[in-house]
């Protein structure tokens, strides 16, 4: 399936259409903001880098390749952009920071919805269990259920194939369910 509006937006942006760029900005800013905040845990840094990142995209619009869906490009490039800045800042303050683009996302209890009808997990401890998952699984969970991306888009962002995304997600859900069952057992 092709995403027509995305394709249009991208084409119009490449032609220098500021209006198309504003639509793009409005539709992706909130999710990129959350994503940046999750990675950096720093609002000011997230917002500064988002400004610089979008300015960078607009200034280099002629060099952008044709895209059918924009989300994978924006998520991947912004993450790289943000990590670069974080690394630079960290070098200046001389603290430890992993060398590769390794991100370990952390979830809080407030972020998890427990009252909804159609949810598998109704336990307030879910965030604790989530945080114990391997970082790849956490990232896949975040991109799928928080950012609402499709598996095909996540596969581009994480650099793994479609089936691996499905497997990673399933593995994560499965171990959450198992952990949950154990907790319940002990409570009895």
């Amino acid at each position, binding site marked *: 399936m092709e995403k027509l509006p995305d394709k*249009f937006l991208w084409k119009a942006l490449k032609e220098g259409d*500021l209006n198309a760029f504003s639509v793009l*900005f409005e539709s992706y800013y909130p999710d990129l903001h*959350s994503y940046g905040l999750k990675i950096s845990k720093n609002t000011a840094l997230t917002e500064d880098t988002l400004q610089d990142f979008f*300015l960078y995209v*607009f200034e280099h619009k002629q060099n952008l390749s044709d895209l059918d869906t924009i989300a994978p490009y924006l998520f991947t490039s912004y993450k790289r952009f943000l990590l670069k800045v974080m690394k630079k800042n960290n070098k200046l303050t001389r603290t430890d920071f992993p060398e590769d683009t390794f991100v370990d996302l952390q979830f809080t209890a407030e972020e998890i919805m427990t009252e909804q009808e159609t949810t*598998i997990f109704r336990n307030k401890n879910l965030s604790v269990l989530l945080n114990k998952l391997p970082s790849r699984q956490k990232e896949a969970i975040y991109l799928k259920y*928080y950012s609402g991306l499709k598996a095909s888009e996540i596969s581009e962002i994480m650099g793994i194939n479609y089936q691996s995304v499905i497997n990673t997600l*399933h593995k994560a859900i499965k171990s959450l369910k198992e952990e949950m069952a154990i907790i319940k057992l002990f409570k009895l």
Partner: protein
Amino acid sequence: MIKKQYNTINDFLEDVSFKNWALQNNGTDINFWEFWIANNPEKNELVNKAKDLVLGVSFNKDLVSKEKVAFEWKKLEAKIQEKTKTKIKAPKAKVIFLRKFSAAASVLLIMSLGFYFLSSTAKITHKTNFGEILNIKLQDGSDVTLNSNSRLSYYKNETRRVWLSGEAFFQVDKKIVTQAKFWVITKDLSVEVYGTSFNVSTKKEKTAVFLEEGNIWLKLKNGADKKMIPGNYISYSAEENKILEDKNIFNPIIKTSWKDGSLLFENLSLEKAMEKIEESYGYSIVFKDDNSKDILITGAVPITNIDICIKAIEKSTGVLIVKKENDLIISKK
């Protein structure tokens, strides 16, 4: 329901009706899948696995507000404009044939060519404030009525592709010779048109389209296409990735009366009616008691004069409405 093979987990995951069942969204799909699962017990494990994946983890999303996004965009826009201002170069124009004219005349011509070049790709934006309606005639002959607090923009050389936020009523001129289509693009979808009249509204995290006559295609942001026939009213949210409303409206005036300067209510609760007032005039609505919310209202109120509007609502519902700064406070008399 399409009878097809479900052999791998992907077959389920890519199936819209399966998703609807997992999320308990759609009655027909729920019935179908309950029947299907009972008749295919060997697929139970696969079904449960796929269901888990569809449901996943439910997050309380804490996204930045619309106002914040608008603020950040203004900041970025200013930076972009600052940069492009310093970079504008004179447009290249082939002027060899101009040699027969005198130097002065050719300079004049180059200047006007340059002006033409610049102006033909210039972006034109029409904006309305609260309580304001604007009639726009596009270069191709199409008529647009822009509702209050809305924005319509397009390029001067491409007036058959317009961007909309807010609400507008379109009467698109058929281009019989070129068969050229007309496009309306919003954050949720784009409308593909070939001569017709319809209403597009992007209020409150969704885009709603009402087709008065002719036929149009919606291209939703999730990639799906949707054909509309006259009387259809469809609203879609890209954020929730679903069609919120899909119904027929037999009294089209209800959806389009705003363009003639009035809002029509037909047995609408006061709460819903006041939402419309909020959208048109930009006031926040405060109900002092819950009973007043359920009063039904039928009638027409103006959308460019708040005082007359308040009086009309007070008269037909018997409540008291007080205008205070940016609030409309509603209480029993």
